[in-house]
């Protein structure tokens, strides 16, 4: 599903943010990316989402080599990857449902079907009563949930989220993680970057730890450069029990 092979990432002539990264995430896994600020967690997610190109190495996502993917084909891959960035990037001049409708408009889905799916996505994240409210009137947790609804409405095969629970109280954070877990249960490969080790330990099936210039995989026996402990969960084989569509039903 996701495979990195000797991936390096640097900006300009600067130092490598990520160096010689190789790992594989199978379909249906729930992976948690841990690490201090500036370690390259967000960069890692952007590389998976095809939002940034690697400086070196190859990345394969959903069966496509990103470096071999034409600019024309890249948007179609993005539709298969639901992205929730640290800044939610919601459109504040549009209602909640219009925000969720955007990914469906991109695919040219019939308006009635699109509206039904957008409502289902809002219901899934607990925002069905607020579909006509503008994001500015929503709380931080609700905005985060709206961003999740937008990311899942196209029924992606992969969900990536960068600090989705940052600055949220524990209850809100747990509710959001439950949403992710629900999608993961039906087979959506989920990769989340977070500072909150304790919270993530309850949900993720595997953890990556990134530090400047270092990388460790809880599922790998080869983690020679990683010294800090803190890999919370043991790797386990994902079980696909349903399709992504089921999560929206």
């Amino acid at each position, binding site marked *: 599903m996701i495979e990195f092979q000797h991936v390096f990432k640097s900006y300009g002539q600067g130092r490598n943010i990520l160096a010689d990264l190789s790992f594989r995430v199978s379909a249906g896994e729930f992976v948690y990316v841990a690490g201090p600020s500036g370690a390259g967690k967000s960069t890692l997610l952007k590389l998976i989402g095809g939002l940034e190109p690697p400086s070196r190495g190859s990345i394969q996502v959903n069966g496509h080599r990103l470096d071999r993917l034409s600019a024309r084909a890249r948007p179609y891959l993005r539709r298969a990857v639901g992205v929730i960035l640290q800044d939610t990037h919601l459109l504040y001049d549009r209602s909640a449902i219009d925000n969720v409708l955007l990914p469906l408009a991109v695919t040219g889905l*019939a308006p009635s079907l699109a509206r039904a799916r957008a409502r289902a996505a809002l219901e899934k994240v607990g925002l069905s009563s607020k579909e006509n409210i503008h994001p500015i009137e929503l709380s931080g947790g609700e905005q985060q949930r709206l961003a999740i609804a937008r990311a899942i409405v196209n029924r992606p095969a992969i969900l990536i989220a960068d600090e989705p629970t940052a600055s949220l109280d524990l209850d809100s954070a747990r509710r959001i993680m439950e949403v992710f877990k629900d999608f993961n249960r039906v087979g959506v490969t989920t990769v989340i970057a977070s500072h909150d080790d304790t919270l993530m330990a309850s949900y993720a099936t595997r953890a990556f730890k990134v530090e400047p210039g270092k990388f460790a995989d809880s599922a790998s026996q080869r983690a020679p450069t990683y010294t800090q402990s803190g890999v919370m969960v043991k790797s386990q084989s994902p079980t696909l029990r349903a399709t992504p569509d089921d999560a929206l039903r």
Partner: protein
Amino acid sequence: MKSLLRQHRYALAVTLRRLAAAPLSSLTNLLVISLALSLPLLGASLLVSMQPVARQVSVTPELTIFLKIDAPAAAAEQIAKRVRQEHAALVAGVRVISKDRALNDLRGNPAWEQALKVLPGNPLPDAVVVSLTANDQLAQLADQLAQGWRKWPGVELVQLDTAWVQRLEALLRAGRIGLLLLALSVALVVLATVFNTVRMQAMSQREEIGVARLVGATESFVRRPFLYLGSLTCSLAALLGIGIARLALIPLNDALASLARSYDTEFALSLPPAELLAAAVVSVAILGALSARWSVQRNTQF
């Protein structure tokens, strides 16, 4: 196919929403473009209205042979006969206008009536008007005939009546070139206005473009509302420009009608035919879309 149509419908809705979100700016752009477009439209109206006049006159080319003032009364008839005999193949008709008839005709014109009263006698010469048959080299032929007839005894002057038509046609040709230059200048104004409008829109929609790309929008999807913006603004402006030109023709035609009446004729400026106007609207819409595409390509590289 249906999906593509839906995407176009979505793009059109986005365009209309963006236009409605900034009504003052949208109106200002419309006005600037429509005023600029109304200028070549007025120029085209002038050319279109003048062309039939030139065409109508030039199909009846005539040469007028004016005799010397002291030429005997029979001289005009002799010249007419000689013209018929020597140039039968080239001449469609010959008529003699005696000095008395010419004076009577002139007296019928109120503008000349007073002036003629103070003259002691008839200052007009006898004249022979020769109509030529249509010919591909008519202008050259008429010129050769005029040169020959000027040498005939008793002939004072041979006037080529098509000369002023040729001058008018030359003027119209110059007018057409001027109109082309004006249209090119206006096209540049349209290009610049649409380019800038789209640039501003692209900057203000930066967040939306970023989000659309994030959720898998193709570049065509991102560009489409801007292309609609360019073509819609331009086609609306072209229609408004036609309206402005039509309004401007009302006072112009009033003034021209008074002038034409004093020459005992009728003349009015009219807009080019509907199919030409429709072609102009479509061309301007395409120009707007091309300008928008250029602008959006340059200004959404983020």
